[in-house]
């Protein structure tokens, strides 16, 4: 009898499924849940951007584009990056348009990893880095960040995990799930260490537009960093375009050439409809970003005040659309806390451990929801916390 289990790739089989799935399965079964779990904007893609996608379909633009993406899109990405973040990249040989930021991370890792290379992954962070690094035959080195450091990567922590085998440092800032931001002076300290090495940085800047205190600084803008950095960005968070699946990489030509090869063989090109929508976003979307950011920022402040009033400590995040409160004082694991909150008040937040073991004692709350929704959830969390005090 054919045993398919024995035939699947050992490497793929060894990947652990995302731990959060079990929690989401319970959530999916339950009715009338007030959920603050979603990791994507609650805004719909602005109409003029959607319309640009629709128009491209009406005009019959339904074909493959060049592998790296439409040249107009790459030109506008270059203009946008210069205008918003001061980065300069040549659209001809330093930009690849990808299927979301996730593909960008995948091809970046695959383009540079050799077997047993070590990839430093600061955690808590988005769930894809370690599995993708391992699929690329690398070794994921998880580096726990600390609340007392405002969940920033410090030079001391970085130095503690660098070995002769270190090939890549992932820089996931602004961070999902903590909302932590690395400012220019924080990045300078990291750059100082990296300059002395052959380490390549993959800087995942998908939340770059959603910073509330300072303008985002890319490590690629610091002296000597551009030549060793792959910047990953995309349209999902800035323009509420998650379903369009469009991202991109910015990297020196030698690295870009390798990434284009992988992209060409496994994807061919990003969807043309999404590329035409993105073209409109890049040209006329700055005001949309500011509008959405205004709302996120207002909700961020409201949810922080709400948690404080309930008596839950929370690090003040400077970016993304999440808060990452410390729930360790309630004497249960993150998973227990979130499961009980869900079962007892029908309110869902994500256990911090979904983003790495060091997320124990924390939970992620997304504020990509309406004010009414957030306030109702805060009321429920308040009731739950009060009920715990009477136990």
């Amino acid at each position, binding site marked *: 009898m054919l045993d398919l289990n024995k035939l699947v790739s050992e490497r793929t089989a060894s990947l652990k499924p995302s731990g*959060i799935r079990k929690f989401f399965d319970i959530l999916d079964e339950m009715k009338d849940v007030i959920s603050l779990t979603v*990791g994507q904007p*609650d805004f719909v893609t602005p109409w003029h951007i959607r319309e640009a996608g629709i128009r491209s379909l009406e005009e019959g633009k339904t074909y493959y584009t060049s592998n790296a993406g439409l040249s107009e899109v790459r030109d506008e990405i270059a203009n946008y990056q210069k205008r918003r973040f001061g980065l300069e990249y040549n659209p001809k040989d330093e930009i690849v348009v990808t299927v979301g930021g996730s593909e960008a991370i995948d091809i970046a890792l695959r383009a540079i990893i050799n077997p047993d290379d070590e990839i430093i992954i600061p955690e808590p962070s988005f*769930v894809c880095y370690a599995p993708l690094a391992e699929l690329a035959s690398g070794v994921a080195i998880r580096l726990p960040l600390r609340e007392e450091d405002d969940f920033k990567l410090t030079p001391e922590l970085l130095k503690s995990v660098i070995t002769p085998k270190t090939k890549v440092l992932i820089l996931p800032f602004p961070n999902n799930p903590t909302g932590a931001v690395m400012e220019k002076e924080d990045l300078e300290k990291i750059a100082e260490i990296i300059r002395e090495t052959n380490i390549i940085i993959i800087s995942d800047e998908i939340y770059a537009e959603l910073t509330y*205190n*300072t303008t985002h600084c890319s490590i690629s803008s610091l002296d000597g960093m551009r030549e060793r950095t792959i910047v990953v960005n995309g349209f999902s968070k800035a323009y509420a375009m998650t379903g369009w699946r469009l991202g991109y990489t910015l990297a020196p030509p030698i690295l870009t050439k390798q990434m284009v090869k992988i992209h060409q063989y496994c994807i061919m090109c990003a969807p043309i409809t999404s590329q035409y929508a993105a073209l409109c976003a890049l040209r006329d979307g700055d005001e949309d970003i*500011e*509008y959405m950011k205004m709302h996120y920022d207002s909700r961020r402040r*409201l949810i922080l005040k709400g948690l404080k009033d309930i008596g839950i400590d929370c690090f003040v995040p400077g970016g993304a659309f999440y808060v990452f409160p410390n729930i360790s004082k309630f004497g249960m694991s993150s998973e227990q806390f979130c499961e009980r909150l869900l079962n007892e008040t029908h309110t869902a937040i994500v256990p911090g451990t979904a983003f790495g073991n060091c997320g124990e004692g924390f939970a*992620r709350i997304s504020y990509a929801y309406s004010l009414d929704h957030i306030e109702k959830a805060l009321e429920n969390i308040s009731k739950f916390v009060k009920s715990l005090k009477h136990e």
Partner: protein
Amino acid sequence: MENNKFSYEKRLLHLLSEDSRLTAEKLAVMLDKDEGDIKAMIEKYEQDGVIIGYRTVIDWDKTDYEYVSALIELKITPQRGYGFDSVAERICKYDEVKSVLLMSGGFDLALFIEGKTMREVAYFVADKLAPLEYVTATATHFVLHRYKEDGMMYRPAQKDERGNII
């Protein structure tokens, strides 16, 4: 320091225009300002006529109340020294008239009028508006269905269908 291209004043007006239920206390938290400053700012906007009022958008079709509205086009002979203002201000005094707008194009004033029945609205136009001095012509267009008003769609709340992807 803040990283937002919208000024604090613009953000305050945006937030209120989208939800006039927001209290000064809540706005103070959302904008990281003093509650007293927010109150003073709102009062000033009210006094200066920047904030004209606070309304709730109601879909009357979903109620049992009789309700019709119409767009009325008026052609006016402008008055020496007053232009259209004098006639427009007089028309504004009627409670039935909800909006009065001076327009470019084939007519001069556009009015939105509300009444209980089409007959009531038609009589109002015939009895009150048409006979007014300087009004030379009227055209009445009844509203048949509302799709969107003040930036809000007339439709049931949308279900959140976003996938649980973290």
